[in-house]
């Protein structure tokens, strides 16, 4: 995690996305118009969040068997970093919705369930703060996290599909991949996702390293 090459790769990809995402060709679609370019910025936020929450649940499971404080710290800090991306995803989604669906928040199933899945992880952090004893905190919050993760996946990817949602890919709406199968959008979209995931992971490692130092100073 101290290597530099992937941090540079992430930075280059994100900068590439800003340039290519605004300048390259996109399909001309009614209602969406130029806002289709938001696909390169709004969707990677959610992918980064999911990757960070996956890291968290991985370390939560690991911490149950290792009882290691380091694994527990990794689980918290990846949730802390993931929530930022979730909130950015919600805000950018609301702005996009204002101009394409008419309201910032139209209580669309996708919006509601996405908000609930972010709240699930706020509950995780509140649960942690409520328990003082370290071993107990690690154990209970790891178990909570193992339940929260599949619920988040169901809320984001299963339930909105069963309801009438305006969001692409849900409620019978086609996803963006069926609008535009040409490789030009993919050439921006995939690097955008990888770039933001790397930046998200980087933020998580910085948070974890700060916590390690704090932890060490507390024990001294």
């Amino acid at each position, binding site marked *: *995690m*101290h290597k530099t090459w992937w*941090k540079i790769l992430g*930075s280059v990809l*994100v*900068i590439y996305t*800003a*340039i290519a995402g*605004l*300048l390259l060709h996109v399909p*001309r*679609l*009614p209602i969406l*118009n*130029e806002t289709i370019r938001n696909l390169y910025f709004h969707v990677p936020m959610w992918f980064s969040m999911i990757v960070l929450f996956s890291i968290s649940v991985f370390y939560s499971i690991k911490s149950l068997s290792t009882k290691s404080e380091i694994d527990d710290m990794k689980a918290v800090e990846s949730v802390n970093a993931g929530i930022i991306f979730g909130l950015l995803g919600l805000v950018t989604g609301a702005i996009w919705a204002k101009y394409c669906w008419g309201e910032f928040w139209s209580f669309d199933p996708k919006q509601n369930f996405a908000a609930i899945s972010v709240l699930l992880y706020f509950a995780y952090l509140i649960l942690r703060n409520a328990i003082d004893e370290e071993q107990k905190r690690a154990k209970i919050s790891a178990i909570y996290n193992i339940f929260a993760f599949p619920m988040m996946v169901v809320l984001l990817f299963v339930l909105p599909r069963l309801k009438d949602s305006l969001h692409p890919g849900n409620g019978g709406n086609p996803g963006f991949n069926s609008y535009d199968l040409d490789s030009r959008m993919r050439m921006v979209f995939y690097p955008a996702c990888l770039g933001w995931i790397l*930046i998200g992971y*980087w*933020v998580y490692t*910085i948070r974890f*390293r*700060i916590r*390690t*130092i704090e932890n*060490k*100073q507390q024990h001294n």
Partner: protein
Amino acid sequence: MQLFAQDNGVEMADSLRSNGKIYVVVICIVIILVGLLAYLFSIDRRLKKIEKENHISDK
């Protein structure tokens, strides 16, 4: 490019593109991103220094 722009009558920001003002937006966004990322690198470097002082090994 211009021919392509008129193909189906859906309104896009064609004049913003044809008069080149889109580059102003792109340059601003790139400057902000480069600035923030450089800042992130400097935080990373400072953290590395503090880790060394606290004898935390690289993992």
